[in-house]
């Protein structure tokens, strides 16, 4: 026997039906202890007890307690009365992934998803004729896995509990849906967001209207909760067929824990940027609006938020206040009728850190629209004993190759000592101050449109052509030319514990290039300031240190100085001194102030007793030179007896 036309299952063949016991009484027919068997299309071979009752006028009831479906067991009971019917099914160990092969379920499961798992629960449905009027699914899914072809969407070992009710609304031709879904175990990935639902269980509830053709879902209200993250609620229009799921909606953020939300929902979007390892603390609340698939409005209040990058380039502590953002279209639409205050953000922090520099508390008023940022009023950010006064900060097209940044600021005097200590350099004396004019960022290169001038060691240091590549990246690069003028050598040498030299020093470091903050190339030249008439003297320790740089043995020189009559002199007069080093490929090519017989003069002495320091090595490995310089700072120097 073959029955066609049951398209919902497929062709049914080999159908056998038998009643063990038939009872007929006053318009009622009961078939008890019956058996039904056959091959039911894709639903496969079935063999189940059956009981059937026909209760007269258009009323009947059938029970099929042992059906097999998608690897599991299903018991089905259908009652019909006056054309309407009610079906109740209990199911256990059903693999939802295998339902897709059965025509009546194929439409319910997306065909681009490979699905697998175990489910149990019940379905209750009512209908009229061939039409479904309502359905309710209560069930649980275990060991649920799914993936699409590219791996952009995937789940593994998920445990879900679902309770969903669908009610047909014939007047509008759509479905009222009320659903609740709890996920407690397993992992899911919606590129780039990874959810560990075992560690952070999640719950979603919503009520909405599903279009008759199931193309869209208008969610009147939803509430999403995730442990350790917080809760989000709002309304949403979901496009179930297009590219963008969330077409339009609102997200009200309730008391979101930054520590939980940042790594799950923000950090994955920052992969490949300098901020991908950002961690945070604190809380925030607010609202996000979405239109045409993209956020168009953000208004959040932050409460004592800390952001910190593990690699340590940046960090902010105690961030608080209000942040608003509008996309340009919405802003332009709202601007004519709105108080401009709604576009303004105002954030403050207790402290902030960039590299080793610690900035003090400040409140920053600004607007962000689209990918543009503008500082509304000048601010003064405390930095050590001075500060950074920012007059202009404007960023346009952030994130685009066409990104434009304009930054005008002034450095209020800062003691160089604090600055160098923070950066882990030897402590200098003096102050640094001056304008930081026209800082621009383009093609990943930060360029300064002017010079930075610093007062140090009673002279001036001018940094020209400063450029930074990847300033917050793993391997920052710095390029600059530095001029030094009239440094007081007495201060320099005492700072670096180099001995004592008096006089003035000028010079230039041209083409300085650092990689990961270590110099890799420069052409440096330092010499006694021409025309300077201050006394020029150099002590024994400085002589021996300088000669060790020039390739002599510092110890040998020290011994020579102390051995003869020279030991009676603490210091010597000199005519001029100078040293140059062109660093290239790890080698420092050295020279002095003048040619000497066997090398070059580093110090040309004058008067009696006369001491010349003559360098012999023209090429010194940079690493060796750095070691020598470090040793000089640490050594006690020759002992004068």
């Amino acid at each position, binding site marked *: 026997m073959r029955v066609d036309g049951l398209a919902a299952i497929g062709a049914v063949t080999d159908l056998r039906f038998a009643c063990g016991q038939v009872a007929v009484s006053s318009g009622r027919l009961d078939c008890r202890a019956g058996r039904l068997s056959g091959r039911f299309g894709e639903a496969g071979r079935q063999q189940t007890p059956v009981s059937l009752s026909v209760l007269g006028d258009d009323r009947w009831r059938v029970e099929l307690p042992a059906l097999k479906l998608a690897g599991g067991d299903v018991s089905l009971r259908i009652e019909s009365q006056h054309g309407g019917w009610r079906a109740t099914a209990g199911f256990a160990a059903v693999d939802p992934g295998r339902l897709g092969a059965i025509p009546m379920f194929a439409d319910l499961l997306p065909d681009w998803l490979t699905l697998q798992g175990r489910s149990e629960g019940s379905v209750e449905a009512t209908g009229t004729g061939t039409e479904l009027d309502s359905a309710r699914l209560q069930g649980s899914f275990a060991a649920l896995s799914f993936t699409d072809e590219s791996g952009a969407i*995937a789940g593994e070992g998920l445990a879900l509990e679902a309770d969903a009710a669908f009610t047909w609304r014939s007047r509008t031709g759509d479905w009222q849906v009320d659903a609740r879904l709890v996920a407690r175990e397993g992992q899911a990935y919606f*590129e*780039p967001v*990874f959810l560990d639902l075992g560690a952070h269980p999640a719950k979603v509830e919503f009520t909405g209207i599903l279009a008759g053709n199931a193309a869209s879902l208008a969610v009147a209200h939803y509430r999403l909760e995730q442990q350790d993250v917080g809760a989000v609620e709002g309304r949403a229009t979901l496009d179930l067929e297009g590219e963008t799921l969330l077409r339009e909606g609102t997200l009200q953020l309730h008391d979101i824990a930054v520590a939980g939300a940042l790594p799950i929902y923000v950090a994955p979007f920052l992969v*490949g940027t300098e901020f*991908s390892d950002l961690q945070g603390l604190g809380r925030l609340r607010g609202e996000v609006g979405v239109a045409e698939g993209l956020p168009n409005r953000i208004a959040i209040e932050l409460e004592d938020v800390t952001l910190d990058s593990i690699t340590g380039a940046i960090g902010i502590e105690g961030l608080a206040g209000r942040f608003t953002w509008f996309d340009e279209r919405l802003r332009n639409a709202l601007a004519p009728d709105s108080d401009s205050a709604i576009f303004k953000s105002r954030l403050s922090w207790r402290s902030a850190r960039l590299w080793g520099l610690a900035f003090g508390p400040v409140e920053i008023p600004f607007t962000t629209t689209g990918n543009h940022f503008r500082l509304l009023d000048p601010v003064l950010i405390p930095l050590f004993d001075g500060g950074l006064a920012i007059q202009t900060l404007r960023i346009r097209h952030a994130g685009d190759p066409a990104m434009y940044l304009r930054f005008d600021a002034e450095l209020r005097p800062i003691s160089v000592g604090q600055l160098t200590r923070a950066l882990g350099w030897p402590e200098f004396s003096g102050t640094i101050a001056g304008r930081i004019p026209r800082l621009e960022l383009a093609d990943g290169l930060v360029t300064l449109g002017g010079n930075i001038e610093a007062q140090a060691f009673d002279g001036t240091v001018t940094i020209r052509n400063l450029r930074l590549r990847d300033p917050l990246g793993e*391997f920052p690069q710095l390029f600059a030319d530095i001029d030094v003028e009239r440094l007081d050598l007495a201060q320099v040498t005492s700072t670096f514990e180099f001995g004592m030299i008096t006089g003035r020093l000028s010079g230039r470091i041209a083409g300085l290039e650092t990689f990961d903050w*270590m110099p890799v190339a420069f052409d440096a030249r330092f010499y006694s300031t021409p025309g300077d008439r201050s006394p020029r003297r150099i002590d024994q320790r400085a002589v021996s240190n300088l000669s060790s740089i020039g390739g002599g043995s510092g110890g040998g020189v020290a011994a020579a100085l102390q051995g003869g009559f020279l030991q009676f002199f603490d210091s010597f007069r000199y005519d001029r001194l100078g040293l140059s080093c062109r660093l290239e*490929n790890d080698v420092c090519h050295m020279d002095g102030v003048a040619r000497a017989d066997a090398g070059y003069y580093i110090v040309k002495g004058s008067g009696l007793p006369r001491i010349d320091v003559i360098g012999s090595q023209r090429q010194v490995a940079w690493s060796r030179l750095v070691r020598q310089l470090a040793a000089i700072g640490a050594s006690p120097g020759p002992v004068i007896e």
Partner: protein
Amino acid sequence: MMRWMTAAIATAGLVLAACVTINVYFPEAAAEKAADRIIEDVWGPEGKGQEQSSLPRGPAEVLLAAARGALDLVIPAANAQADLNVSTPAVRKLTASMESRHGQLAKYYDAGAVGLTANGLIEIRDANAVPLAERNAVRQLVADENGDRDALYREIAAANSHAEWENDIRKTFAERWIAKARAGWWYQDAAGRWVQK
């Protein structure tokens, strides 16, 4: 007959190479040598029999090899053998950074999750070959590796005072990464198709 054809192609190659190389002096042989050295540092020394045979296989490679042979003849040995400087601190730091990252990346090359692209970078080829919890870590590894590779090509060009060589260096590296890739790894051919080695 086949041998005669090869000879003819080789001659054509010689004439061509003679014209081209004088105008554009990019030390390709030296760049290959430099690339191989860096790749060995990053990936570790190769196991036996894993490197692709240096004998030409297809006609296109015959032509290439012929042209390269011709180049050695035409260009004075001193020029053609000019070493590319790859021992600057920047190149060393980048190489070390890539080498330490390779410890994490290797299993994803092996699994076919990550492959070598035709422009000297790497790409996620099959996210399904990566456990869910590791997918973002792999995205980060790939982004970091590509950042280092871009910087490496730029730095080698800069270290040799020829910033304009960056693209040639990238191309040389792209070929050498693929040539030195382990059997079973995936790479993109010139048409952008994934091929398993």
